[in-house]
């Protein structure tokens, strides 16, 4: 699988997550399609921002310089490998963030 496919796939999963969340939170009721689309987009942006932030917060400070270089290289595989090496429990870390994000809308 190419890296571009990976990015698209992650984006799709996030979109799907937001879709479900909107339905579960009952936010879709009585909303114009246009408003709903904008809402989904905003929530997706917010989710992505939070995921970005949580990843960053889990990277040790001494590794930020290295991370910056890897990030600037735009090499998606290198970035992905960096994550794997630096945050071994990435799934749990992200799960916490997804969970937290969800509880903001559904308590």
């Amino acid at each position, binding site marked *: 699988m190419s890296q571009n496919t990976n990015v698209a796939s*992650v984006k799709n999963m996030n979109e799907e997550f937001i879709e479900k969340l909107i339905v579960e939170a009952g936010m879709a009721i009585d909303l114009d399609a246009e408003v709903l689309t904008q809402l989904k987009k905003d929530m997706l942006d917010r989710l992505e921002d939070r995921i970005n932030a949580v990843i960053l917060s889990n990277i040790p400070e001494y590794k930020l310089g290295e991370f910056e270089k890897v*990030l600037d290289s735009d090499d998606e595989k290198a970035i992905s490998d960096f994550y794997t090496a630096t945050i071994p429990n990435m799934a749990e870390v992200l799960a916490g963030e997804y969970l937290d994000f969800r509880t903001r809308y559904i308590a």
Partner: protein
Amino acid sequence: MENFNPNNINEEVKQNIEKKVFKAVLVDTTDVMKSAARDAADEKMTLEPPENPEDLKGMKKFFKSEFWKRTGTRIWKHGILREYTRNKEIYKAREKILNSGNIGAGEDKDQAYHDKFVNDLVNQFSSEYETAIHTDAGEMKKVYDGKKEDSEVNRKEESVKNFVKEKIKEYATGKISEAGFLEFEKHLFGELKGDIEGKQVRTDVMHASNMLEIAKQVKKAMENGQILADEDFEIDLIYGKSKGDVRTESKFTHSEKWAEKISETKIGQFVNETTVATAIALATSLSRSLSSKLASNKAAQFMTFGGSALISGIIAKSRKQREMIQNRTHHNRDMAKGLDYGEKDLNRKEMENFRVDTIGATAVIEEFQRVQEMIASGDKSITPEILQSILVNFSQIEARVRLSDKEHIDMIHYSDPSKVVEERWKVDIERSKLKAELIKMSKSGKLEIPEGYNFDTYISAMTDTQVNALVTDKEHGIDVKDRAFNKMKRSKGNKAALTGFITGLTIGTLAQEAAVHFTHRTGIIEDVYHDIKGDHVTGALGGVEKMTGLAYLKHYVSSDMSSHFSGNNVHEFVMGSNTMKLPEGMNLVHNPDGSFNLLNGKDVIGNHLTMNGDGTFSKEAIDVLHKNGIDIKVDTNYASHLEKHTYSDPADYIKDHPKGFHNIERKMWYDNDTKEFDQNELRTYWSGENGTGINGNGDYVLDVGHMTPDGSFHGDLSANARELLAAGKLKMLFTMSEGTQNHAMWVDVDANGKINVEHNSELGKLFFSKVNGHAQFNGRFGEVAEDLGDGKFKILGTMEGKGLSDISTYTGAVDEIHKTNFIIPGKYDYRVPPFIPVVPGDPLEPARKKAKEDKNKKEQIKDKKSPDGQVILTDGFYGEEDKNTLKENKEFSKEVTEAEYGGLKDDLKMLNKEIQSHHGIIMLEESSFKSEYGKKRYNELAFIKDEKPTRFNKEELQIIGNEMETYLSGVKISSGEKVETKEDKKLSKQEERAQFLKTLEDYLPNATNTKVQAAINSKIFELKKEIEDEEKIENPKQEIKKVVVQKEVKKQEIKKEDKKAEKKAKEEKEKKSIKKKINEALDKVENTMGKGLDALDNGLDSINSVFEKKNKKKNQKQEEIKEVPFDKNINNIFSIMTDTPKTLEREIDSKIEQAKDLPRRNKQAFMIFESDPAKVAGLKKKIEELKLKYPTAHFEFITPSKKDKETIKDNDTAEEYMKKVVKEKMSKVGLNEDDVMNFATRYK
């Protein structure tokens, strides 16, 4: 691509001489595009200044729609949504630029703007001058000319060139369209960029090129027959990367930089998709259980809230600081692009304080061109000193370029946004040209280079010095500006943090309250409303009451956390005379053993509960329920079936109630042979507590133990009272009236002489009452008598009363009816309010184009400028004659005022000082001059009218200085006194030298280059020596004196220096101490952050502990003083009018006693009339005591309103008022007059 044959190089080079060679330029403009998008977004994020700033000050601003509109915009667009809106605008601008291919599209610039940009880039990158490419700024240039040393490289370059050439020919011959050619160009750009940068090229890239233009030229040439075949033209391909915009970039700290990065890069997208899928699956499966835990865990919510509050404050600070950084960058970039700002643009003005002084590109170009012309024309006025000055100026520009490129600070500004590339390129060309001229001068020996240097090392050393000066200048250096900016940034950040914290708490809470309608939660207003109305239904067991954080806090603080049931959410369970109010979902189930189980749904919450005979829970059952957290409150009401009968004649009463009455016959009275009562006749005393006649049981007690053995006699007969007591032969007889005195009730007198009448007995009720805490005998006679048997008695002593009349009796019964209420801990679902920090933004005002008249003005000045760059004297100022005299440098004599003369002298001194530094020159203004001459001449300077106050105009200023010097040499003060101008001239030179010396000495510590330091030291030594020599020649004696004075001065200076050093050391120490404290504070903050959860947890525990203590205390107090409500259970209502605590107590005591004799005496209500609120306050303490004394009584003050007071004239009207008020109260709680025994008895 065609293969290049290296064997044919020489031949091809030869052919190229004959061929037309096109320079095809392909430049990567991606970075420029990104900057342009950011600039466009920043421009969109500006806010026009208020039309009338005065309207937006003070209270009046709240009545101006503009204020609200601006505040709203600042809060939303420039505050809460700032990052979002800015990023959205950046994205939009980037899309516009990429889609249109126009670099100015983001700022709505037309195609001509883009074409000029491309043209300027082509000129820059095809330029032969090395300086045209700013590698320090990140620019690069690669020429594909096939003329490298490496043949393999040449082969590749030739291959690329030929490929380009081929495509151009294809276009020229119509084989490919313009679109096809542009597609090829794009493809070629991607290939070359990817090859050079070694990575895959993204889609959001941009380039500029002249290749299509070349293709069009070739096509035209072919059509005209100028180019016939391949060999008739050649291509030199230049690939470059441009940073073709102004230089200023935001300087973020580490964290700020990352915040910027994560907002622009979706780093989360690069996580492995399996990881994301796992995370989502994990989150979804955990969400239900965890979210419910979170919802029920209020500590977690509070932690989140507290954490949010803390973090939001920090975020607000960080965001404000980022805004300030971006504002500074934005403003600096705008100013560097030649834009302007207005008088009302306060935020721009503030940012201007932190902008480093820039120098105009056009001024540099003109100046360098002028100098080159002077050098080229062999101008004899160019002395070695002037050449040195030119060298200094040149190195300063080099320093500015270096700082701009390396540090991303704009040190040069341009005349217009569209001319940035063009003017920079021209500056670069002029730099190269001037450098070449100076090298020539150096080689010819006209320009002296100090020993140990060559031209390049000397220029490099001077540039280093200038860089250092620009950075560290104490007043205007970059460091000073940065420090000032950081101070302002910190201050605004802290203010924003505080604002964020306060608004976060307030707005979040208010927002939650405002949203109660949508969230179906009980808000504080609704809660209080129900409290007032008294129909509060909270914490229902069957359901959970949802409330806001504030409403919950109210319940928590007031310890009202139990359930209350009413209306439809209860059902009743009747057991004997007890009615139980059970909440919905709860039921009592009968057990075979006669006990009951209390169920909540299917859960047993009380097992084997036993009942009393009246259907109320037994003590054991109450204990069981209490252990399960349920308290029981039993309200008892009385159902009256009594009939009242009043006897006006006691005889009738005795007739109807003969039981207890005895017929008696008094055989004799031991009257001690006297008419008046005396001796034992009077020795019947009240006994009981403190002689009140009432004992601890409330019974009435008398004492005849004090009767003496010989105190009762009549004639010869006597009775020994002591013996009779011991023999148990004394009785006390009670008769109701004189008419019924042969019918008595009696009690035995015990051996101690004590008589006890039970207060509940018929005797006690009929004959006694308690008045003011004292027993009162209400019958007619109470006689101590010797029992002779058969109802015959001899009387020893008598107690008299008023006698009884109007004796009331009741027939029937009073039933007790119980109502059992369950007090169950309430279930509340509350939400901790969201934390919504609101910090309004401080947007910059839009940048403005410089006014057009500037240009006209500039043109006019240019006309006035002489060809040799010297200023022209204005006609008529000092007159044509003076002008000529000055121009010809002749001696002349003229009278001026003393003020003008002094002004000229001061101006000359000032000029000589300021002219020494660039900063001095640019800070000069008309007001710097004291003399009229100076002011006039200053305004006539070409560079002033051109608005280019640069140091390159030092020469022009020197001309003015020379003029002044000449002028001073010849003028007389108008009083007629001739001025010694030669002396002045000398003094001026000395001062100039002293000033120069001071400048060098001041600068010396800043010089980092050792060679420059050495040169300065040498010059300082030389100057000092000159001064010394001159002074010695002038006056040797004075010199000696001067040396002594100087030594003394030096001593003083050393002392001063020492003091200064001491002060500085002290300041440093203080600073260090403050810094240490700040660091400690920061450590604490970090610790707080690090241990945030623990701290918050502990904080919550502390809060809980405080609340618990508070509640405990409150409960204790409440246990002591229980408020008895005015409700339907009131048995007696007494109205009291009183004015002192003492009389109030006495009267209430009396009424309580009175009520004791009544069949219904459980609950009394005392309505106390007091019209003076001040007195009410004084009586309240007494009432609190009485509440403790009479825990079943209700006490209430009736205080008439002002209006009601007018109707109260005397006691009667006061009584009417009281009755009216009491009746209203009774009506409210459903009490009838018949329900109470004593209704509003007036008692005064």
